């Protein structure tokens, strides 16, 4: 229910913005600046680039809001604008594809290791969060975007498909492969809590 009210409010804002209402734009910035920034940061891994992208995105909103025909889809549209801006940056900076080659990851290695039984203070430690953040960053772009949108930002598969202009099955397959890689990297990291370290013993 709460979601519906929110959506309604977004649609109202968009309608007001189409009339050139500065208060509506201010509210949109208030509501979405961190989301846009975070997504841009996740995709570019660069705080400065994320700020620039955010600025571009909101200027694009002003310039292109007239082309958004279904006002309720504003947030999805905004994610798409952000993703495209981030991709544009990556392409320009030639920062595409310097990540872990997927083939290099041995999916079988830790399958028997049940790290889910580790205590919360290990699972949720700052260090493990950092490992996960870096692991997400190391995913190939196509997977990273989907994993960030779905598992970090909490979008629905359909919204992600719409945002990226790909099919829902494609979203699912990238997501699944991305999660398997993350799981593998986490397994490697958490293995230090059960296996004797180094050459000793």
């Amino acid at each position, binding site marked *: 229910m709460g979601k519906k009210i929110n959506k309604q409010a977004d649609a109202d804002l968009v309608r007001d913005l189409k009339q*050139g209402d500065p208060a509506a*734009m201010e509210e949109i910035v208030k509501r979405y600046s*961190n989301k846009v920034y975070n997504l841009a*940061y996740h995709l570019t891994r660069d705080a400065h680039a994320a700020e620039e992208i955010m600025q571009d995105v*909101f200027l694009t909103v002003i310039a292109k809001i007239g082309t958004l025909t279904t006002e309720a889809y504003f947030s999805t549209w905004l994610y798409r604008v952000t993703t495209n801006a981030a991709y544009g940056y990556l392409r320009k900076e030639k920062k595409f594809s310097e990540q872990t080659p997927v083939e290099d990851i041995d999916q079988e290695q830790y399958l028997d290791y049940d790290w*889910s039984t580790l205590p919360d203070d290990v*699972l949720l430690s700052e260090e493990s969060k950092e490992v996960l953040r870096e692991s997400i960053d190391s995913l190939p772009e196509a997977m990273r975007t989907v994993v960030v949108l779905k598992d970090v930002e909490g979008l629905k598969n359909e919204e992600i498909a719409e945002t990226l202009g790909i099919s829902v099955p494609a979203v*699912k397959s990238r997501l699944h492969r991305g999660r*398997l890689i993350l799981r593998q990297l986490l397994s490697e990291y958490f293995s230090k809590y059960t296996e004797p370290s180094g050459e000793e013993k």
Partner: protein
Amino acid sequence: MNCKLCSALFQEFLEDSLSEELIVEVQDHIRTCSKCRVSLRTYTLTVTLSRKVDPPCCVSPETLDRLKKIIRERLLKTNGVPV
């Protein structure tokens, strides 16, 4: 059900989008196969932990002020609305 199919269904299992029959099949398999049991647990936890990754957060107040200023100027230019 074999292990390969079982693990291919984890995603749908978590999204609750499997048919009744398949859910039962997955659960039956997991009960008897420790490899898939562990695999589902760690897969699920990977997803749970990803949700807890802190956003890089946040836009600095200075950046936000600059953005607002640029936006005001742009709005003024595009539709002549005084702010």
